[in-house]
């Protein structure tokens, strides 16, 4: 089984400041890692994913994340946030490889961008 921990439930940050949203996972097997974003009253949209290869992955809207296997982390970063980035961000993990593997989500981090 896999588990995901997002330590920060809420992160306020000023506009144009950098932000890091933390995610740690636990798994006994190889995993894929994902970050999804949920804007108010909307569904989940994929931001980026790590499957294999380069540990630094880039996603939409200027976000990037780095996979660190030794620390079992997949932190999300953006160098300069905008008001429009205000949303809830979910880190998720699934088993790697073929199959209908479920996603296990963290509890989410609410990012509030302050003008």
């Amino acid at each position, binding site marked *: 089984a896999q588990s995901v921990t997002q330590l920060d439930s809420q992160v306020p940050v000023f506009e144009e400041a950098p932000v890091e949203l933390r995610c740690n996972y636990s798994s006994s097997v190889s995993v894929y890692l994902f970050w999804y974003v949920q804007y108010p009253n909307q*569904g989940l949209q*994929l931001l980026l994913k790590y*499957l294999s290869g380069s540990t630094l992955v880039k996603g939409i809207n200027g976000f990037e994340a780095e996979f660190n296997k030794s620390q079992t982390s997949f932190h999300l970063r953006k160098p300069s946030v905008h008001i429009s980035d205000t949303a809830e961000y979910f880190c998720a993990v699934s088993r790697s490889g073929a199959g*209908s593997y*479920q*996603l*296990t*989500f963290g509890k989410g981090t609410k990012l509030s961008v302050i003008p």
Partner: protein
Amino acid sequence: EPEVTQTPSHQVTQMGQEVILRCVPISNHLYFYWYRQILGQKVEFLVSFYNNEISEKSEIFDDQFSVERPDGSNFTLKIRSTKLEDSAMYFCASRGGQGAENGDTQYFGPGTRLTVL
């Protein structure tokens, strides 16, 4: 861009009633999922469906729940006798699978908010 759609967007029902939540996954996707998110809590896996049968299910997915793919496009979640604690946002997702572009990624619908009174 293809997307997952869900209907209705909001369903209100009385405790003990049956509800059917409907989803149209992305065309040509092979794997289908239902998740739920109780207000203020994390998104939880309910069930996955592949090749016309359930492939995985969680503890939440008890005998009150069932899924069906009645035709080539729809994927439904039925709750036979709703309880107050079934009130949640229910998300459908689909994934293309091997050979498909981004076949490893689950794409989510906008959700159906179920309110049980």
